């Protein structure tokens, strides 16, 4: 096996491609740095000069509003120049290859590439071909990984629960297609959460998911019992009616988070969702907008976490 392509020779973070394989110290460093930036985002002048003169290219081969926007805000708060490229509708349709696109942008003096791509592993391919002073941050690749989302989830959990040890976290819904779930699972197991559960019908749980260090529950009520954190995953529209699931209604009945099911979790449980939500499918409005929900703070924390990641890789 090759050495971890995310780390430089000194073992520092060169690219952020996946949470899997990152040591606890680096995860903690990112969370601590994000903590220090959380203050910045609340100031009147929301800028620090850490990335002044640097160029951040947002390379989105797959459409995204929220993630792209929060990366843009994060880069601007670090005083970087941000260039947004919606490649889904430009060079790819002209037949330019992924690596040609990256080589061209690299010739325009990029410092950081923020990449989202529908194919698992695409950011690894890019990271193998960029210059040594350039950094790649994975903003979501296929079903594989979404490390900044995973980190902001970890940040949120740490913010409300202080410590990972002793925590029981349930991740509910379409784990099969979820890069968010994979990232969070690796983060939680690395940081020492005492139990990570995945809950869903067998059609939406990937083969051998237990090997990631999780406990599998088919029955949501059973799985939610005594949980400290409940993470609901988004169910994509195209997966609601077909061979994976018969209908959104039936999914909602068995795996949608309602106030009644949430009552089985701990009294102080928090509810998270990476967004965008399907209200009435995986989560009811009463829960999404209720007292346990930390869904909007997740978005705010996301900016601080992305600032932390960009400043750390750029400094290494």
């Amino acid at each position, binding site marked *: *096996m*090759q050495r971890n*392509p995310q780390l430089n020779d000194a073992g520092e973070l060169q690219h952020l491609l996946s949470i*899997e394989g990152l040591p606890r110290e680096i995860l903690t460093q990112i969370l601590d740095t994000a903590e220090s930036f959380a203050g910045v985002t609340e100031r009147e002048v929301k800028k620090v000069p850490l990335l002044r003169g640097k160029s951040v290219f947002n390379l989105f081969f797959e459409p995204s509003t929220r993630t792209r926007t929060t990366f843009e805000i994060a880069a601007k708060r670090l005083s970087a120049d941000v260039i947004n490229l919606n490649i889904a509708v430009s060079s790819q349709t002209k037949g330019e*290859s*992924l*690596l040609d696109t990256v080589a061209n942008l690299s010739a325009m003096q990029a410092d950081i590439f923020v990449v989202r*791509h529908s*194919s*698992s*592993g*695409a950011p*690894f*391919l890019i990271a193998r071909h960029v210059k040594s002073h350039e950094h790649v941050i994975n903003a979501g*690749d*296929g*079903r*594989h*990984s979404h490390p900044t989302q995973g980190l902001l989830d970890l940040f949120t959990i740490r913010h409300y629960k202080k410590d990972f040890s002793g925590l029981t976290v349930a991740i509910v819904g379409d784990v099969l297609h979820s*890069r968010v779930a*994979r990232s969070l699972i690796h983060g939680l197991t690395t940081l020492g959460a005492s139990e990570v559960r995945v809950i869903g019908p067998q059609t939406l749980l*990937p*083969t*051998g*998911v237990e*090997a*990631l260090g999780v406990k599998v529950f088919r029955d949501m009520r059973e799985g939610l019992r005594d949980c400290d954190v409940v993470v609901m995953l988004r169910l994509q529209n195209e997966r609601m009616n077909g061979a994976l699931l018969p209908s959104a209604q039936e999914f909602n009945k068995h795996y949608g988070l309602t106030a009644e099911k949430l009552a089985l979790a701990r009294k102080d449980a928090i509810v998270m969702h990476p967004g965008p939500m399907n209200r009435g499918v995986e989560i009811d409005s009463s829960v999404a907008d209720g007292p346990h929900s930390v869904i909007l703070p997740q978005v705010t924390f996301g900016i601080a976490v992305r600032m932390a990641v960009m400043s750390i890789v750029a400094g290494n």
Partner: protein
Amino acid sequence: MRLHIKNARIVDPASGRDGKGDLYIADGKISQEFSKADRTIDAKGLVAAPGFIDIAARLREPGLEYKATLASEMQAAIAGGVTSLACPPDTDPPLDEPGLVDMLRRRAKALEHARVYPVGALTVKLEGTRLTEMAQLAETGCVAFSQANATLADTQVLWRALQYAATFGFPVWLRAEDTWLAKGGVAHDGEIATRLGLPGIPSFAETIALSTLLELVRATRARVHICRLSTAGAVELMRAAKREGLPVTCDVGIHHLHLCDNDLGYFDSNCRLEPPLRSQRDRDALAAGLQDGAIDCVCSDHTPVDDDGKHVPFAEAEPGATGLELLLPLTLKWGEARRLPLAKSLAKITSDAARVLGVGSGKLAVGAPGDVVLFDPAASVRISAETLKSQGKNTPFLGYELAGRVRTTIVAGNVVHEG
């Protein structure tokens, strides 16, 4: 040309011979001893074996010359000691018309390198709906009929194709993979694919399709060769089918003897293969099955792919690996790991492969075709873009040093390669 090879360690798997001696080739055939040779080769320190037979090597012609050409891949073959090869029909257009097959054979023959045995398409355009003119294709030289990696989902067509082929006694070479279960998958459905977020192909996609095929063989008595086993379950099914006396044979690709899904590492697109690399347990069962005869022979499944096809994200990468030049080193490596005598290892790429292909080569008996390879089992080859003759540089073994270096390749008594 009368050729005398002296001082060689002669290894002939067909007869079990392994010992020092001399080899004589005259009129393109292995000959009795003679005194006046046109050329004498001193093979001191080298093994003299029958030329290797690779029952699956893509030459990419016609139509896919940007990936490789007949000239480049025939060079790769002789550099790898391969003197006979069967090429699957998945060219562009596919080998579904006598004219195409005839052209390929002529072009290959003109190069005076390895012997080329075309495998004809089983269905027109490999679309899995209409049968090809098998009898006519056989007349132009097709030795078997196959779908290559194209799917044949319609079991009615499959049944009829086997009945028709059985009528004439033509062998049918098929992959065992359920079209629907494999749909969209790019890696073995297991822990690794789950971690990497790659759509999986379950093992039972192979065993279910194989069970169907075996049932159709029972019904039609067609001679069927199963290409590229990848699962432990399939090895077990083949073992049972042979015990039952069904007219079936099978092979394994050289990469699947050594690699498993773990080797995907960080999305190494050179490990994107068809069938996918499976678990360690499957790999071990394949290696054992090849030894005990459940699997008949090994092939390179040579598939040159250009950089454009591989320098893309894993799932989008074109499947396949270059293999002609790795056939010997990787077969030796397999035999070494299992502590097999050299003749036993080499049988899998000589006499056993000849039996599957139905040709008279693959042995050193007097009167057999004068196809011989001289190689140094101890000297290593470095697998690199520079050293590979194939136009395809796509291999998971890039950068490896592998033992087994071909020095001389002889086809029909002519020295076609010296390295």
